[in-house]
């Protein structure tokens, strides 16, 4: 910075300090505006990252098809099979079938496909029912997701080969399964069968934090594909061949192509929608679109508060120019050019707005973590948001300071001197 510019801002700062209260009130607008911008950008960025983390956990190159029991009213009579001596008994077959998987394998040869078996039995630990799904999965199921082993081991191909009763539990169930009375290996009961817990993991697979994983072959062997639900006066048999299919593609182009094939195949094979198709990348795009709109709205609000702050500065600076007309005359008489006067007033406005901006940034840095605590939203302050906010406050100073500064510089020196 040249000595002249330094002098200019030093003098500007001193002039502002002469009227501390007025200066403080003037910079409040920019202070609140910048604090709002930092907070909005911080919360927006935090939300963006949360969405990205959540969805990319599902595997951005994955396509998931889950079997879903359709509402009974949607089913045709043929599907509501009431037979035998016991009226009210029905067999409901729904969800993804082996045929679907065969067709998908041949239609999408480049995609890796994993098939999981959804066990309909409930899980218990020490007599207490666990709020958890049970999924029979192949050993390589976790390679498709963002998964991490916390303790123990993954499911092994030998577990499937030997139909072992072993389970991998999510981190969230650790407290329920590790009981003080338990001296040996922890166990979990699924239906009426005991499963040894061999590992604790954290995964971003769908509902992964509430899912107990057991070997696929064990699940099929022990629990089969059917389940019975008994209600007063009726029994409902349900049969699902496949609980979940995951297709993994190499790249985005392949993913889009595969997603289209999957949609076509499933729509053709399932006139009644008894499956849920999830394409994480599509969800991500939709959420990002929503987030962008939200960010824009938030920024417009912050922008309005900055605009109000800027107008406040301009208003005060116009009054200051009027108040200091004699001073302007004196300065012109001793050699100040129009530009010198212009820069003098502009320096004061920029000093005000930049100071407001810096204080606003600091306030934003405090507000973002506080908002996190109060609301549970994620907030992230990036260097770029700080730079943008400071730049904006500087631009506000230049933009709104220009009119008063030009007015000061264009004053006729003789009139200004007479004003005193």
């Amino acid at each position, binding site marked *: 910075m040249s000595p002249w510019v330094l002098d200019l801002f030093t003098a500007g700062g001193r002039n502002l300090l002469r009227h501390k209260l007025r200066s403080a009130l003037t910079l409040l607008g920019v202070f609140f505006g910048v604090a709002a911008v930092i907070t909005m950008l911080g919360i927006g960025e935090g939300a963006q990252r949360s969405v990205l983390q959540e969805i990319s956990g599902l595997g951005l190159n994955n396509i998931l098809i889950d079997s879903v029991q359709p509402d009974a009213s949607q089913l045709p009579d043929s599907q509501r099979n009431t037979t035998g001596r016991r009226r009210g008994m029905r067999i409901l077959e729904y969800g993804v079938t082996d045929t679907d998987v065969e067709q998908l394998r041949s239609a999408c040869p480049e995609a890796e496909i994993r098939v999981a078996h959804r066990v309909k039995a409930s899980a218990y630990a020490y007599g207490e029912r666990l709020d958890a799904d049970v999924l029979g999965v192949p050993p390589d199921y976790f390679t498709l997701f963002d998964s991490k082993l916390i303790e123990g081991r993954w499911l092994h191909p030998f577990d499937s080969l030997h139909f072992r009763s072993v389970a991998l539990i999510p981190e969230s169930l650790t407290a329920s399964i590790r009981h003080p009375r338990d001296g040996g290996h922890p166990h979990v009961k699924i239906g009426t069968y005991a499963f040894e817990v061999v590992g604790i993991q954290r995964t971003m697979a769908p509902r992964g934090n509430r899912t107990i994983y057991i070997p696929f072959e064990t699940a099929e062997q022990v629990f089969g594909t059917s389940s019975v639900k008994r209600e007063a006066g009726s029994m409902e048999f349900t049969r699902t061949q496949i609980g979940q299919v995951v297709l993994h593609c190499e790249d985005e182009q392949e993913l889009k192509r595969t997603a289209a094939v999957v949609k076509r195949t499933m729509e053709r094979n399932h006139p009644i929608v008894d499956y849920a198709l999830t394409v994480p990348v599509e969800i991500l795009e939709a959420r990002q679109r929503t987030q962008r709109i939200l960010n824009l709205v938030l920024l417009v609000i912050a922008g309005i508060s900055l605009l109000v702050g800027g107008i406040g500065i301009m208003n005060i600076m116009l009054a200051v120019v009027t108040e200091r007309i004699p001073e302007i005359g004196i300065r012109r008489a001793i050699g*100040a050019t129009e530009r010198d006067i212009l820069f003098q007033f502009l320096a004061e406005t920029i000093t005000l707005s930049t100071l407001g901006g810096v204080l606003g940034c600091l306030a934003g840095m405090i507000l973002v973590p506080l908002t996190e605590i109060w609301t549970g939203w994620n907030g992230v302050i990036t260097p770029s948001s700080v730079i943008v906010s400071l730049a904006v406050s500087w631009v506000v100073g230049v933009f709104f300071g220009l009119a008063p500064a030009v007015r000061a510089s264009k004053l006729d020196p003789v009139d200004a*001197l007479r004003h005193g």
Partner: protein
Amino acid sequence: MIRLEQVTKQYDMGGGLTVLHALNLDIGDNDYLGILGPSGSGKSTLLHILGLLDRPSAGRYLLHGRDTGALDDSERSRLRGRMIGFIFQSFHLLSSLSVQENVELPLHYQRVGKAEREQRAREALQSVSLSHRLHHRPNQLSGGERQRTAIARALVTRPDLILADEPTGNLDQKTGQEILEVFDELHQAGKAIVLITHDPAVARRIPRIYHIVDGHLHEAPP
């Protein structure tokens, strides 16, 4: 150094008000001249034109042979800052600055470095016997001291011409005499001075006197 040729100043106020009528004036390098006239006679307007704060409506103003009418605002301001020192009746010091800072101010507009500014301001204040008041504010000074500060501010740029507008008008007689003695010293040091006054007692000390009446300038006989 200065030549005014047929300088006229008119204001567009309801049909035009002529304040100065085709003035001709020559000011040499070491001239000390006084301009006397009643209020509203055009004294201050003439001083503002001489100080490049105002422009004549007609005629030519030559400074060191250069026609100032062709100069833009920046050039006029720079020339004013470098060659002309103003001294006003009401001192026109900036109350927010110290005595030394007030004197440094013209040098700031000439982009003189801080160390040199301080050095030259101290020298200028020493020449008007105010070395002991460097860090005082103008409102802590007497009228005479304020005018001395204004003189120091006018001298700090080492100007060729000093323009003084009723410099003793706000001072008591004794202090006024002291200030006029400072002007005598400046004249002896080779500065050109134009002093505006309506006080005949002040005018008696000035070697060359002009009367201005209704915008017409007449040189008084020596």
